[in-house]
């Protein structure tokens, strides 16, 4: 049974104005002198309570910076909550930042293996799957070349083909996905639909309000790191729409 539960989850980023702390700052701070590189706290998620059960298809909507992607990364286990409890049961597959994480010197086949291992495959299962992955990516003999020579579109194709090659129980998707050229996009959309249909539980972050009601049954409206509204997909989207058109500045 796939299940997600968040109880009183808070997520606070402590970022510095300049990226990393300097040793000088660290020492100065210890001596109670004011630092030129102060910590700024960003409360990305505040008191999130959420329960998603087997069969649910949940969409997260809201303006940029409302915490949608943060919550997705938190569900995936990449961010750990600052406080509160995260319970996730089921094998997760996440589709975000997929164009990252290639070994530039290795060729396409090798990168298929590395990614698949990270998704929990074994050498035996990779061997049985890699022909399918290669075929879906349509990269042909490019797979024998180092990924360094790939175009951005080719990398996304390969990444998408690998990421969607497993059958997840929990599927997490961010901002679906402009993958490759037009023909490949249609193919990718078809595959996404299949995957979504088979996943036991799905969470999507999207701005595509038109198509969400066809895919999802529930929606969560995020606003400044809090849940503003949660419930039936069409209803939440309607409320979000009217709020945005009522206060154009807030969009």
């Amino acid at each position: 049974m796939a299940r997600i539960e968040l109880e009183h989850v808070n997520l606070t980023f402590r970022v510095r104005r300049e990226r990393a702390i300097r040793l000088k700052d660290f020492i100065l701070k210890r001596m109670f002198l004011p630092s030129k590189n102060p910590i700024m706290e960003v409360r990305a998620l505040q008191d999130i309570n959420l329960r998603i059960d087997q069969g649910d298809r949940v969409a997260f909507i809201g303006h940029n910076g409302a915490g949608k992607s943060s919550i997705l990364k938190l569900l995936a286990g990449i961010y750990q909550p600052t406080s509160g409890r995260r319970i996730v049961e089921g094998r997760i597959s996440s589709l975000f930042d997929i164009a990252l994480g290639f070994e530039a010197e290795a060729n396409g086949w090798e990168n298929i293996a590395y990614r698949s291992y990270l998704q929990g495959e074994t050498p035996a299962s990779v061997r049985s799957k890699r022909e399918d992955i290669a075929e879906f990516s349509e990269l042909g003999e490019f797979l024998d070349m180092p990924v360094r020579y790939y175009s951005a579109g080719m990398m996304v194709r390969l990444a998408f083909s690998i990421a969607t090659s497993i059958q997840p129980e929990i599927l997490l998707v961010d901002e679906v996905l402009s993958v490759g050229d037009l023909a490949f996009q249609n193919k990718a959309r078809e595959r996404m639909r299949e995957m979504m249909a088979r996943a036991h539980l799905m969470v999507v972050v999207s701005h595509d309000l038109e198509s969400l009601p066809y895919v999802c049954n529930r929606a969560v409206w995020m606003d400044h790191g809090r849940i503003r509204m949660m419930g039936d997909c069409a209803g939440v989207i309607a409320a979000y729409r009217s709020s945005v058109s009522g206060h154009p500045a807030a969009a």
Partner: protein
Amino acid sequence: MRAYLGAIWDSRFFWLSLVRMDLRSRYRGSVLGILWSLLHPIAMTAILCVVFSCVFGQDLRIYAPLVFTGLTFWGFFAASVVQGCNCFFQGESYIRQYPAPMAIYPLRNVLGAAFHFMIGLGLAIAIGLLVGPDINRNPDATRLHQLSALPSLLPTCILLLLFGWGLSILFGLLSVRFRDTRHLTEIGLQGLFYLTPIMYRIDAFKAFKDKQWMAQLLLCNPLGSFLDLIREPILMGRIPSLTSYVTAGSVVLVLTIMAMIALRIEERRLIFHL
């Protein structure tokens, strides 16, 4: 703890294949390939031998194996530290996508360095057997003694692996937090190289009565005990002393505990600092 080691084990195909790729891509397109990892310490040894045998009149048959074993160890140590500084940045794109245990990224570097070390160690053993044991220091030793002392290198290698892994984790975490770490480390390593008995033996200082403090200082360097663990069987044909094992073992133990504590604190926050 157990679950963490389990997670590392579960992702073994991932980090093992990355280690393999690192080794392959390092020598991709070079004619000599893997031989380069041997040629580097050999060339350094040759240079040092020329200098020290001309200037200080060292006996090459004793001095060359001494330097070569020293450089082989130093290569592993320096790689663990310097590449360790880089390991989490190198793995950043994976860290951003998959919740794998952080310790696998330092492990990737250390296993690569360990591979080169093993090649160097193999050659060092061959040189040691070729030249024969240092009969000035251990008059009874024969090549048979050398051979029978070789199994003592096995626990040494395990100690070294843990040592390198711990170092990599600590320096990796430090340099994510403090970006100056890498540069400071490189300078520190330069100094440490001369404070470690790589090109000389500590007892060389015992001849000078007024330099005893120097010998005492050098004895404080725990890296010396690792060098003893490597050199005693290969160069002297005897099992290393218990003191060396205990010193090296305690260093590894302390380092491992520090690395575990640091990981426990930083593991969940690391991504916010990358």
